[in-house]
């Protein structure tokens, strides 16, 4: 178990820059999730830490050691692959014993370690089976067992739940996180699913186009996103982005400006911001569907319903506001139907401002 320090890490394939200046400090025992769409570089970052690819520039430390030049087998990290990569010609027990045999440990110690891990994962009855006789969830557990027996400095997870169906994924999310808490091993977990990130992580690294867009706790990324990408990637249904204009109202003494957010001729609310905005006042406003509330059609903002999506828990309404399409989520039972008018209300504090061209958050 150890802290992992990543400093100015870059990776290129020829001229193609896949990772740009990644800086990340992971504490001992922390569960960090790398999340982002395909091609953002998250798997590449994981493989660099594992030693399966060569670093172009920068430094990775585990504990106090710089591990750039070490072969994978010398880094003392364990990886759980997306396809599990269980050795097909060996039994589960042999799979789990392989690494310890390579270290030259005695048969008794190996058997003890394998049995202990199998008990923790509840796979004792599977020990003499071969991988092809196991279900997806069972193979998952064996892959974790194989990593566990090594008592490594860190666990690396490469989208381990992608091949499972939705129900199983929910269950495994819980089990993986619980196991990691019990063991206390530093873990880095790669996924493209933001729900996994939000529910499992101590901290999230949101990645896009090779850059770490934001690093923070799930609450940080949800409440205080740094840019359009993070705001739109985290949370489901996704955040609404509305093209709006800021009309300057007054400046306060402490450098905070108060402006009115206008969507067409509709007034959304008064916001405060410290940073300067564009001269033409154009801004992208973000508002989460679950933060929009129903109001009476007479007051607040008038919208028209395009589509209703009941989810059981509540309803997702597809609305049209001043010509722009937005989504709203409410748990209240509705009487309105498609093509009806409905009034909505937003709290100005829930409005997030972004520069429409750079995507950077305006605070």
């Amino acid at each position, binding site marked *: 178990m150890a802290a992992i320090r990543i400093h100015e890490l870059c990776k290129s394939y020829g001229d193609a820059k896949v990772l740009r200046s990644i800086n990340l400090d992971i504490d001992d025992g922390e569960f960090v999730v790398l999340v982002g769409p395909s091609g953002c570089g998250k798997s590449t970052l994981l493989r660099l830490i*594992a030693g*399966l690819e060569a670093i172009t520039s920068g430094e990775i430390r585990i504990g106090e050691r710089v591990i750039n030049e070490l072969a*994978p*087998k010398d880094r003392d990290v364990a990886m759980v692959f997306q396809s599990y*990569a269980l*050795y097909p010609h060996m039994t589960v027990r042999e799979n789990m014993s*392989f690494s310890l045999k*390579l270290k030259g440990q005695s048969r008794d110690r190996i058997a003890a370690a394998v049995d202990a891990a199998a008990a923790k994962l509840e796979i004792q009855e599977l020990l003499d089976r071969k991988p092809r006789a196991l279900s997806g969830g069972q193979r998952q557990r064996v892959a974790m067992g194989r990593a566990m027996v090594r008592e490594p400095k860190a666990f690396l997870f490469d989208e381990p739940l992608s091949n499972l169906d939705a129900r199983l994924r929910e269950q495994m999310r819980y089990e993986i996180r619980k196991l990691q808490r019990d063991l206390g091993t530093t873990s880095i977990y790669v996924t493209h699913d933001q729900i996994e990130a939000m529910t499992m992580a101590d901290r999230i690294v949101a990645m896009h186009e090779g850059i770490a867009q934001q690093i923070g706790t799930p609450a940080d990324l949800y409440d205080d996103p740094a840019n359009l990408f993070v705001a739109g990637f985290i949370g489901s249904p996704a955040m609404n982005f509305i093209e709006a204009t800021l009309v300057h109202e007054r400046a306060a003494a402490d450098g905070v400006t108060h402006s009115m957010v206008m969507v067409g001729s509709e007034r959304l609310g008064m916001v405060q911001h410290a940073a300067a905005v564009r001269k033409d006042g154009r801004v992208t406003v973000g508002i989460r569907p679950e933060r929009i509330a129903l109001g009476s059609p007479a007051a607040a903002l008038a919208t028209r319903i395009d589509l209703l999506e009941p989810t059981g828990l509540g309803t997702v309404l597809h609305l049209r506001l001043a010509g722009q399409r937005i989504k709203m989520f409410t748990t209240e039972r509705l009487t309105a139907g498609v093509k009806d008018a409905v009034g909505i209300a937003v709290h100005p504090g829930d409005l997030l401002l972004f520069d429409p061209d750079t995507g950077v958050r305006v605070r």
Partner: protein
Amino acid sequence: METHGKSYWAIHYLLLAAFVVFALFPLFWLLKVSITPNDLLYSEGVRLWPSRITADHYASVIAHSQFPLFFRNSVIVATTTALFSTLLAAAAGYGFSRFQFRAKFWIVGLMLITQMFPLVMIIAPIFRLLKPLGLTNSLAGLVIVYTAFNVPFASFLMQSFFDAIPKDLEEAAMLDGANRFAAFRKIIVPLTLPGLAATVGFVFTAAWSELLFALMLNSSSAASTFPVGLLAFVSKFSVDFGQMMAAGVLALLPVCLFFVFIQRYLVQGLTAGAVKG
């Protein structure tokens, strides 16, 4: 697929029967003459089965001729070639499968070229190369030459078998504490046993059948392989057909046995590579 009428299947089976007959008839005839006694050979000529059969020809071939020696030489050469070729081809095929490196294009190109030029072209230079080294009239010389001839195709064959194994198995092993070569030995090779068997069988068959270089490089009968020996026998004793055909049947047996066992894997491996073109 839709169901077909009776006439469709009738034609289908008829054509298949024709192919089977065409394929097996020469071998059947070989067998037939080899067990026909000499006195009936000319009088009964075209009969499909002799009125009396005998094992005399086989007896004389095995006991009184040099065929056992030729047979032994061929077995030694073919087996050794098959083992060495498969070793080199497994390594090269693995390299092609797992790595992208600059020289790969040239190396693959080199191997493709060797499949294209007439081998007869290098008979003379190889002869002049091997003679001063004392490798003519020797089984070792043949093994070296045959191994080189077979390695390119065997490498491509092994490559297609390795391609079918996911790369993350080695990566898992490397993280578990093995270096790549150990991962290759302990994880990948056990999983490609069918591929190795197919390659061994294929090279064995090719080496067993080679005629021209064996003819050129060997002038003594002590080092002759089966094809050479059989050909010499044929030209010397061109009237003793019974014995010659018996020798022919004996020549067939090893390769046919191999083939029956490995045909499945060979088709698998070739289809994997062939479809890619």
